[in-house]
């Protein structure tokens, strides 16, 4: 009796014994490359075939030929890059599997921003998960991270030091609302990254009962519109540039971090400068930015989430891509994992 399934499993088993993960996944200057599928994940320069984890600029770059990503990530790339977003798109829903060459690929939610995904790769009976950027706590703008058991887990480590423990979102939003109530004559200017952080902060405020219009710097408008079209309800939004100074007293204004201390902000009435970022946990970082109200709100896993995730996916081997990889590698080795740092170029230290 033939048992093709059994035979396949048998062959896979033999291949797995012979094949090392490094044999089919490599890290090059251009990014993480999957040899049997001949594609790059989040390539640093234009590639023939690119799998994109999420829409942030240091992961999703313009100019790729074939782009594979979740439908939301593709929409975000098209909104940001227009014609340059890519030549052909293959939308892949979470959990939907495709074969690329000899490799199988599917995407799992990463909980980082709308559309963000982990890339699950299977070849020769092995499974490697490339996390992209992720977090574990609830985010009202995207589905939660799903741990996928695997042989090699490739993780980020943006906040890979035990000093980074993000507080509950509710506490931080509560502090912002308390400050708005305490200074009704001043505007509150909150620095947020345009993709993800901006919309999450708005959603968290809405959930906390803040139903007044929220004013936006022009650079934030397009992605907020897109989130709205993709089903993330953000409530009343206004262009800060069209409001006069008196209208902005007591108002909440969101702007990209670069605009916080720049000429743009001079139009605001005595602004209380806030910043929503995991870096705000460290005083000196907040003070360098001239922030008066630091809000520790991050779209990246904090130390506890990173270590929890490593335990959850139970991969015997851990590759750490970017961030404070030394500390996470050390921790993992102490716990008995095989762990090493990948020297991945092109990731922005500040971005989150």
């Amino acid at each position, binding site marked *: 009796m033939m048992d093709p399934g059994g035979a396949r499993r048998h062959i896979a088993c033999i291949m797995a014994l012979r094949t090392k993960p490094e044999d089919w996944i490599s890290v090059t200057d251009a990014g993480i490359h999957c040899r049997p599928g001949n594609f790059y994940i989040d390539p640093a320069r234009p590639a023939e075939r690119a799998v994109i984890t999420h829409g942030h600029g240091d992961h999703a770059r313009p100019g790729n030929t074939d782009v594979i990503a979740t439908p939301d990530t593709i929409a975000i790339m098209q909104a940001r890059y227009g014609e340059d977003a890519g030549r052909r798109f293959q939308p892949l829903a979470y959990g939907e599997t495709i074969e690329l060459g000899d490799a199988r690929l599917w995407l799992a939610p990463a909980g980082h921003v709308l559309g963000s995904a982990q890339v699950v790769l299977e070849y020769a009976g092995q499974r490697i998960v490339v996390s992209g950027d992720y977090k574990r706590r609830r985010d009202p703008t995207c589905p939660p991270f799903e741990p996928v058991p695997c042989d090699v887990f490739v993780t980020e480590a943006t906040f890979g030091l035990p000093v980074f*423990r993000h507080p509950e979102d509710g506490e931080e939003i509560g502090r912002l609302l308390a400050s708005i109530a305490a200074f009704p004559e001043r505007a509150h200017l909150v620095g947020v990254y345009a993709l993800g952080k901006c919309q999450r902060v708005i959603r968290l405020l809405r959930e906390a009962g803040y139903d007044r219009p929220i004013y936006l710097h022009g650079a934030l408008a397009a992605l907020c519109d897109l989130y709205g079209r993709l089903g993330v309800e953000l409530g009343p939004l206004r262009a800060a540039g069209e409001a006069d100074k008196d209208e902005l007293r007591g108002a909440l204004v969101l702007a990209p971090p670069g605009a916080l201390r720049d*000429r743009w902000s001079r139009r605001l009435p005595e602004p209380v400068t806030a910043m929503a970022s995991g870096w705000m*946990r460290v005083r000196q970082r907040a003070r360098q930015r001239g922030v008066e109200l630091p809000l520790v709100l991050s779209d990246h896993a904090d130390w506890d989430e990173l270590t929890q995730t490593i335990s959850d996916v139970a991969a015997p081997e851990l590759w750490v891509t970017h961030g404070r990889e030394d500390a996470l590698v050390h921790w993992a080795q102490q716990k008995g994992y095989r762990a090493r740092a990948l020297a991945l170029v092109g990731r922005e230290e500040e971005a989150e």
Partner: protein
Amino acid sequence: MTPFAELLDGLVYTPSRNGKLRLMGRYFTTVPDPDRGWGLAALTGGLSLASAKPAMLRALAAERTDPVLFALSYDYVGDLAETCALIWPGDGPRQAPRLSEVVDALGLAARDRVPELLAGWLDGMTAGERWALLKLVTGGLRVGVSARLAKTALAEAFDTPLDEIEEVWHGLKPPYGRLFDWLDGRESKPDVSGLPTFRPFMLAHPLEDDVRLDLGAYQVEWKWDGIRVQLASVGGERRLYSRSGDDISATFPDVVEAAAFEGVLDGELLVRAPDGAPAPFNALQQRLNRKTVGRKMLDQHPAFVCAYDILFDGGEDLRALPLSSRRDRLEDFVARTGSERLTLSELVSVDEWEHLARLRAGTRALGIEGLMLKRRDSAYLGGRSKGPWYKWKRDPLTADVVLMYAQRGHGKRSSYYSDYTFGAWRDESLVPVGKAYFGFTDEELRELDRWVRNHTTNRFGPVREVDKDLVLEVAFDSIHPSPRHKSGVAMRFPRIKRIRWDKPAREADRLEALERMIPAQASIA
């Protein structure tokens, strides 16, 4: 501990003076006794809980964390107390102690019990509370609040004149129960007679350029180039206070020991040059801001007080008397109790304004800051009331320098490049000689900001390096040798006088020209 931690957090992040005053005012009016008194003591430097050394914090953290992870974290954070506060697991049930509990327990605890106490508290605290506790026990809050600003906050919060608070301040002790009883209106003002407390200084207004005073009504004195002090010796206790009301007795034991009298004097603190004459300010500066002072320093820079005025003679309060009477009492007082540590400020005798102007023009050569004109009939009133006293300072020095770097300002100025580092030529290159952030109008600030943005050649965080093309005329009170600066010179009170849009950078001053402005007898310790 929770309200105190919230206060410190607010102070760290609030750049504006008014914002800080408001935060402190809220703390003083809402937090119960004795916690608010301990908080006040911590802010004014009167709480010495320095019970934990850095090594103790490291050891504590090492028990709870992996040493490699701690080292990497400390590298990143850069501040030991903050690293410990952030890395501490802190997963116990929330129950931060009150500030007064912390102070009491640490006051009673034997040194070897301190780590255990701290660990217990840290377990029940938030990261912000842990940071506040660790700052408190390692000493040095560094939240941008001077003792005087904290007292100002008290004055505003309780609608009480700052002078009155300063007057009772040094007669009271933490946790300041008597002070708050009085401020809350439950008790009368604390009686500090018989104590060597600080009495508010009478201050002078700058004399405007075209004003001529009736010299017959004024007493004229030199304005010496030291620091204004109050020397109080009451009931056998002696104190030396600075202009801001800080007790600087420990820094100047030579002056304090020599104050063998009963009374309170107002004068200028100076040090003597080897020839016995008052030394330039730079020499005094060697002795300022030291907690303790060594023998060598005392010998090299002996300090003395040049007395301007007398507030108390024995227990007798002379402040309501006219200056002319006080002057008689002062001359008599110094004749009785004076020494090489206590001299009398000589009067300048002039009857014509032109003569006075000539004397003023000669002050720089004498190492004197200018002239003082005080109405002979003036009572000694704390604060700066306009009319009775004027200061007529020597003209500042000026130099044409080249803008080298610009840095963003703080608070309202945070979107402007408003802090300017400028240099003078040495050979073919520029060396920084000073930094200024005032002296210009709002319109000039906008122009400078625009110029900086359009001429940036390099960025270092908040600092921009600019084209070496813009000449600034800076004014400064004096210039001194300084081994800490690359140029070897340091300016006092530099400010931007004019922007020389017209002047080519290569025609700006050379370092040698600045060096020639250093007072002749200036020497570095």
